[in-house]
């Protein structure tokens, strides 16, 4: 039901009569404009009211109200950062959980690293063998401690025959006595570990100007892996033959060993 123009005119006229201003045309026009608000269309029912009236709801979800749809879009845009943040956190959680579940970080670390370095052997450069120690540098201290003063090797006499000439033939090699001054338990252990080999080497190989062979270190890549070499050389203080690792490395470099 909407009120007709005649009805509005009657209402306004009655009101103006009650107020004692029946003849004011300008006022009447203004009041009729105000009375026109009664002719507004009924809003589309929504929600509970729509259910009560038995008509389809004009809710925003139903898409019948474009203005309401725009409001819903704004609400969705407002929540978008929260949704994205949740998705990223969920993806990160799934990734971390997947790695943990695969056991990739739970492998036996010592074994893993042992396998990794087991086959490692230091490279030697292509310098003439006569000028280079045959074995890896970390092994050198072990071997240099082998010659015991109490049992001079047989070859020492023979070496003595060559006497003064021999030291000059190996200018880059440090004298064995360099490590003798401070014998270490590790060095002794290493010496005991291969006395026969060292003795055989000393016996079977006449001095040829290379103390590398004389020290008993086998030529070519060492059979001793990197890990063992350090376990046998480092003492409780972390020194090698009383020297720091840096000193030893400098010495190795001077010997021409490429690390």
């Amino acid at each position, binding site marked *: *039901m*909407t*009120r*007709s123009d005649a*009805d*509005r005119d*009657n*209402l*306004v006229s009655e*009101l*103006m009569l*009650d*107020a*004692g*201003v029946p003849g*004011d045309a*300008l*006022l009447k*026009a*203004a*009041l009729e*404009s*105000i*009375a*026109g*608000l*009664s*002719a*507004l*269309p*009924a*809003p589309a*029912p*929504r*929600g*509970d*009211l729509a259910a*009560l*009236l*038995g*008509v389809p709801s004009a809710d925003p979800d139903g898409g019948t109200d474009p*203005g309401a749809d725009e409001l819903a879009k*704004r609400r969705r*845009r407002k929540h978008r950062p929260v949704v994205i943040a949740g998705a990223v956190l969920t993806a990160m959680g799934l990734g971390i959980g997947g790695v943990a579940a695969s056991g990739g970080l739970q492998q036996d670390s010592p074994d893993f690293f042992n396998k990794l370095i087991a086959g490692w052997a230091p490279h030697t450069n292509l310098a003439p063998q006569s000028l280079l120690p045959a074995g890896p540098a970390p092994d050198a201290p072990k071997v240099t401690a082998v010659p015991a003063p109490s049992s001079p090797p047989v070859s020492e006499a023979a070496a003595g025959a060559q006497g003064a000439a021999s030291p000059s033939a190996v200018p880059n090699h440090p004298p064995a006595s360099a490590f003798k001054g401070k014998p270490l338990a590790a060095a002794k252990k290493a010496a005991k570990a291969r006395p026969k080999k060292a003795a055989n080497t000393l016996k079977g190989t006449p001095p040829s100007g290379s103390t590398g062979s004389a020290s008993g270190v086998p030529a070519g890549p060492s059979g001793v892996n990197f890990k063992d070499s350090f376990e046998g050389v480092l003492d409780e203080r972390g020194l090698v033959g009383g020297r720091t690792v840096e000193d030893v490395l400098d010495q190795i470099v001077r010997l021409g060993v490429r690390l």
Partner: protein
Amino acid sequence: MTDALTDEALQALQGNDAELFSAVYQAFAGQVFGYLSAKGVQDPEALTQDVFLAVLPRIDAISGGVKGLRTFVFSVAHARMVDDHRRQVRSPEHQEFEAERDTREVLSAEAEAMDRVAPGEVLALLGFLPEEQREVLSLRIIAGLTVEQVAEIMGKSQGAVKQLQRRALNTLREHSAVKEYVAP
């Protein structure tokens, strides 16, 4: 004023709630919406729906035919309007500034609705009036109520209502904006 919803039609629809509710809603919803818009409530459309959610289930208990129903409908609307105004006074709306919603080239949703349902100047005319004068005028010429009905709803005497409507009309007459509004 001729009401399409007559006492006879109202009586005939008794027992058929779906049709009765629909007829009552169509008869009064537009006027309630206009009244609430004129009174400056925050969401006239939503409040109109609230009014009928309160009215329709109690139709059977209303006496006095269409006249009694009209009085009851606008009594509820008046009460909801008062509640809305009190709510606005207690907790004025504060919203954070959102740049994406700052579309200065278009009207706000409320202003757009007001322009769609009625010229802004009409509401501006009512804005010149004090609250009670505005209420009397709205109930008289928008809701279509008599002085007696308005007095009942506002809890005032009929003499007080007549005094308020007289003052309201004098205020409008004296205001230059009225002349500018009605001038061609």
